[in-house]
């Protein structure tokens, strides 16, 4: 098993390398002198020269890259251009909020998806199934920021049940925190709910066609027992794959949702930083997003193997 993990990590290396190169090029792709971009307002020749020297912009590109990677390895993601705060710190401050949002969204999506997907599979072809499937396609078609806006309009502006934005730390006031997270989580999780429902359904249908289901019925197991005990455990194994990937992709969905709901997470930081031309922060977040996605991919495979007794990674 450890050899498998090591082998996978080894295979990931070239990709990881290319990813870092790509992110590194982010600043350098931008037309114009990177120094000017980084400096923004203050464009005095001394400042420019200083930046050039500080970032080693006078050195060849690959040398700059090596220096950058070296710093990265030490956890030094550079400093924010606007606030001069270490990027790692800035991200670290916002990350818990994003993670909270992502997890609640995931919870919402699973609470919706698994029962609906199971029902759709068991009652395959029925009206309930077709309606559910139709909702699925709709769910991935509606932009999540639009869902957010509609939610705000209905539940915040029209009926003042939930606040329309902002954040209260959990440690400060758990109830308020939950009140604030509900709408963004629903907005963020709905697309995921649609995907998960679809996947649960097809996985369930496939499992219900297996012979061991017939065996269970022959033993006198009721349909309820067959579906929830015999089928579900098998059907959910592939679903774990999808869920894992969604966890890895939390930042992606968060970008827009956090903007709509002014949620102080990493996603909103990314958008703000783009407009502030704070490229070091953008770099840091993009890197984080890419690596968490890659690692999620790897972890998902491992968890799959752990869940399915038939698979062994010898």
């Amino acid at each position, binding site marked *: 098993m450890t050899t498998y993990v090591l082998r996978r990590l080894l295979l990931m290396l070239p990709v990881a390398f290319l990813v870092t190169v790509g992110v590194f090029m982010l600043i350098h792709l931008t037309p114009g002198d990177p120094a000017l971009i980084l400096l923004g307002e203050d464009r005095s020749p001394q400042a420019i020269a200083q930046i050039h020297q500080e970032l080693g912009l006078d050195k060849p590109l690959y040398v700059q890259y090596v220096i950058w990677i070296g710093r990265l390895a030490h956890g030094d993601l550079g400093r924010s251009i606007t606030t001069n705060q270490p990027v790692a710190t800035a991200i670290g401050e916002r990350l818990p909020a994003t993670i909270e949002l992502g997890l609640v969204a995931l919870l919402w999506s699973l609470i919706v998806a698994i029962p609906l997907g199971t029902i759709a599979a068991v009652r395959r072809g029925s009206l309930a199934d077709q309606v559910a499937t139709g909702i699925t396609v709709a769910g991935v078609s509606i932009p999540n920021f639009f869902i957010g806006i509609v939610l705000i309009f209905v539940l915040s502006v029209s009926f003042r049940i939930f606040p329309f934005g902002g954040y209260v730390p959990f440690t400060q006031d758990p109830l308020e925190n939950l009140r604030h997270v509900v709408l963004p989580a629903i907005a963020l999780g709905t697309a995921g709910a649609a995907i998960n429902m679809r996947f649960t359904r097809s996985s369930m249908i496939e499992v219900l066609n297996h012979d061991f289901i017939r*065996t269970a019925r*022959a*033993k*006198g197991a009721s*349909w309820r027992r067959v579906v929830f005990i015999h089928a579900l455990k*098998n059907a959910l*194994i592939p679903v774990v794959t999808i869920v894992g990937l969604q966890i890895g992709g939390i930042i992606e969905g968060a970008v827009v949702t956090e903007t709509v709901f002014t949620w102080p997470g990493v996603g909103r930081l990314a958008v703000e930083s783009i407009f502030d031309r704070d490229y070091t922060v953008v770099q840091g977040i993009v890197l984080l997003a890419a690596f968490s996605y890659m690692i999620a991919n790897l972890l998902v495979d491992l968890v799959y193997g752990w869940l399915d007794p038939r698979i062994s990674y010898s």
Partner: protein
Amino acid sequence: MAHLLELDDVHTQLTLKDGVVRAVDGVSFHVDPGETLGIVGESGSGKSMTALSIMRLLPRSGRIAGGSIWFKGKDLTEQSEDEMEAIRGTEIAMIFQDPMTSLNPVYRVGWQVSEPLRIHRHVRSSAAQASAVSLLRKVGIPEAEKRVRQYPHVFSGGMRQRAMIAMGLSTSPSLLIADEPTTALDVTIQAQILELLRDLNRDSGTATILITHNLGVVAGMCERVIVMYAGRIVEEGRTEDVFKRPEHPYTWSLLRSIPRLDAEVHEPLHPIEGSPPDMTRLPTGCKFRPRCLFAVDRCAVEEPEMQPVGRQVARCWVTQGGTSLSERGDGG
């Protein structure tokens, strides 16, 4: 003595894209307590569908269109789903062909084997586990305590089938239906499993219906045999009678197609002519006629009824007319 199981003119239909198939077309037979009955036929003959009809485990496209299935005084075709669930796994048990796929891969074998006990006898988990161990021992699985905690994929094919048998017999059912239990197994393992089934039948008195396409399996194991073709029974009788002197051309052809060890080297093999019938387009008259070496004109016009012929019952104009198949030798 009342029969344990009695099928009376049972009709089961499958609704397919190409049309409605009468998978079980007017089947009647009985099984007595403790008896072993073999049901022989090729794929599509309706033998498995008959078993699934008894268990009321038909696929979505199937339904019982007529007839009655009497079991211990109840008509199974009229039982509700809840009532059937109380019968399955307790009074009637069924084991299937492919042990590889018939066991749930994500649950331990012991858990699955003890499931009928937990569902029907409400045995608690700890006691159920102990029962599972003794059940596995009873079917001849070595190191039962270790095996009980293992997952199915670790078991060999033969062991899995033994586990299935253990599962089926755990609640001491009155009737065990085995649908091609040895088809997916190696020949040597086949013999072991059949011997196991024979011993268990003898020791526990559980009536057994053995479904197979392999006559050899029936020969060693069943007291009586039913031969099915195109959804109908074409011959029924005591195994030794049917084997010694078949009274239906299909049975005759089946027996003749088995290669014999004592045959001459240059003797040709005798496969059955033609191919299995298209169940959506059956011929008029006798359904076996297109492949029959003995057919006469009447066979194309009118379908024969089951009538006593010789020491058994058969559905054939030729034999009912007094002609013996073995006298005709190669036919024609």
